[in-house]
């Protein structure tokens, strides 16, 4: 989710676009087209279909265009991807019962006695709940006990989270997913917050940013996961920079300085020092600054100009200027413009990564 070199199928260029305003209508058309059917270029990501759906549906919500979505169909589809334990014993078997990322990782058996493989995933679970919340589904109707009780098994002794019980990398992305899931379900019994906090703190690097794991290089996406999680868990307050820094659990002056230095000469944000500006970091870093109460330090004019060079004439945003758009960068382009208070856009809950409702 927080990889800076994210999506890979768009390499051809799309030059000659003269548009220099945020083109809301084209963006709506772009998302609508993808909502109808995703081109085969996305098949390599089909395991994360819920995430792709999240970009489209939450994107339409930010653009004030949710009426294009069949909410009933969306709710039924998302709910059909939830993994349900057959009984109490199965719930305690160490597996995670969240949401499958797509039908391709979900298996059914006609025989009620036979257990089918369960491949539900933390990131998919976050996206499922985010979509449901976006289309107005009452999350208290969800069987959250099985999600939260089984989520505990994914937390490691160092506080980090693994996304799937069959084994995968453990890092800040999944601490963030667990925190949003708990926040959306309004129940923190599925994670040890204190341990999660200590893990996050151990990821703050010598330069003030956060790496995905302790010792790793500071990175915009990881820094967002760290700060947003701490905020969701209540370990830091809103507008942190207006308070005394000496009592803060993170090194705030270094973090603030590191984040602001990520705005490059071209106006865009880079994910790491000495790297190229990329659309998505306008959200990852811009979001951190917003949580810290420091977004007034961003040079909004040049940021807007940079983002518009990444706006495609077909709608959507690309990673770098003049390329074809993709859903990931489009979504974070929209969220960035929402934070820039573009007219006719819904405002954002930055730490949840979805629009306000």
């Amino acid at each position: 989710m927080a990889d800076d070199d994210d999506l890979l199928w768009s390499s051809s260029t799309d030059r000659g676009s003269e548009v220099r305003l945020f083109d809301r209508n084209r963006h709506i058309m772009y998302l609508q087209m993808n909502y109808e059917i995703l081109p085969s270029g996305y098949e390599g990501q089909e395991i994360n279909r819920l995430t792709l759906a999240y970009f489209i549906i939450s994107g339409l919500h930010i653009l004030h265009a949710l009426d294009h979505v069949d909410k009933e169909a969306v709710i039924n589809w998302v709910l059909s991807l939830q993994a349900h334990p057959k009984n109490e014993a199965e719930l305690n078997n160490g597996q995670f019962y969240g949401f499958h990322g797509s039908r391709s990782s979900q298996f059914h058996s006609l025989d009620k006695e036979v257990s089918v493989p369960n491949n539900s995933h933390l990131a998919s679970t976050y996206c499922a709940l985010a979509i449901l919340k976006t289309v107005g589904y009452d999350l208290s109707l969800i069987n959250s006990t099985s999600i939260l009780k089984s989520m505990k098994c994914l937390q490691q002794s160092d506080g980090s989270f693994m996304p799937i019980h069959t084994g995968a990398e453990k890092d800040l992305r999944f601490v963030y997913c667990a925190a949003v899931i708990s926040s959306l379900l309004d129940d923190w019994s599925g994670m040890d917050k204190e341990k999660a906090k200590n893990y996050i703190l151990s990821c703050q690097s010598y330069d003030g940013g956060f790496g995905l794991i302790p010792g790793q290089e500071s990175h915009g996406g990881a820094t967002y996961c760290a700060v947003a999680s701490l905020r969701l868990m209540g370990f830091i307050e809103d507008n942190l920079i207006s308070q005394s820094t000496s009592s803060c659990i993170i090194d705030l002056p270094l973090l603030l300085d590191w984040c602001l230095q990520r705005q490059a000469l071209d106006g865009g944000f880079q994910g790491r020092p000495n790297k190229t500006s990329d659309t998505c970091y306008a959200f990852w870093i811009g979001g951190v600054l917003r949580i810290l109460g420091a977004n007034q330090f961003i040079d909004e004019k040049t940021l807007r100009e940079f983002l518009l060079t990444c706006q495609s004439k077909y709608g959507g945003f690309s990673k770098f200027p003049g390329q074809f758009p993709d859903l990931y960068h489009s979504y974070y382009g929209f969220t960035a413009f929402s934070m820039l208070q573009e007219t006719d856009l819904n405002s954002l809950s930055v730490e949840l990564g979805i629009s306000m409702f």
Partner: protein
Amino acid sequence: MDSDEDERIPLSQRPEWSDITPVPQDDGPNPVVPIAYSEEFAETMDYFRAVYLADERSHRALQLTSEAIHFNAGNYTVWQFRRVILEALNADLHDELEFVEHLASKNSKNYQLWHHRRWVAEKLGSEAAGRELEFTKNIFLNDAKNYHAWSHRQWVLQNLGGWEDELAYCDKLLEDDIFNNSAWNQRYFVITRHPGLGGIEGIRDSEVNYTIKAILTKPENESPWRYLRGLYKNNMKAFVTDSKVSTLCLKVLTSKVNCVFALSLLLDLLVHGFEPTQDLKNALESLIPESNNLDSDVAARVCLVLEIMDPMRVNYWRWRKSSLSSHVEDGVKNLSVH
């Protein structure tokens, strides 16, 4: 069959698969955001589903996971089943290393691939350390900042060993590209975690010298400035009293170009209680246009110069200036704690 080739034979036409009934994806009555799958993608996954549901741990199933991964490298279920098969067949894991290396040569930015690689390396144990370090080194030839590869390398060092040449390797990468922030980070990782180096206090002096040299070649390079500050992370007293740091600031300010990071570090020194020398005050003076010569506080003057030299962050430097008094208090408090 090499699935890279264009003349891929459909699985349905391969005799060795004739006994398998493919299991199509059941997308339900009202699928949301359906994907226009290509034919070969859909077919491969249909056969994979059949084999997976039958839990067939065979050589042909292993081969099928290779093909599925070729189309769908992010599918963690396929990777996980591949590991189950490898274990069941007691396969030679060195072949598996080759498989991963071949894939990585085409696309090395995939979390599943790196998780798989770690699984293999973990099974092979410390004998694998050299090859793993070499593997990441090869990735860095094309992309010296590959985040996955750096994670893997740090894991290898911490779990399988191979620390001996790591600082020299950082030297080499920084020689190739002094702006490579990943290499600076790795350097910090080595000096703080290498079990044989004895920690940051012992090595600080030589590292400071190394870093100052790097800064003076390219004062506009943010990475060594951050590294330098990091060397004093848990010892602000040494940060404020080490004359090498303030001398460096003086040198860069005197040159009058690319001063932003020097000014920023100087500001950091000042809020932590540093008393500026007359030379430093003079160097600062020469950077301020006469008309702006109003503030007597040195830190405030540094902020003023930063407002002018770093206009993109003018609001930030103004805010830093306005919050100076409270910051100095914090700094003094911190000093008295250490």
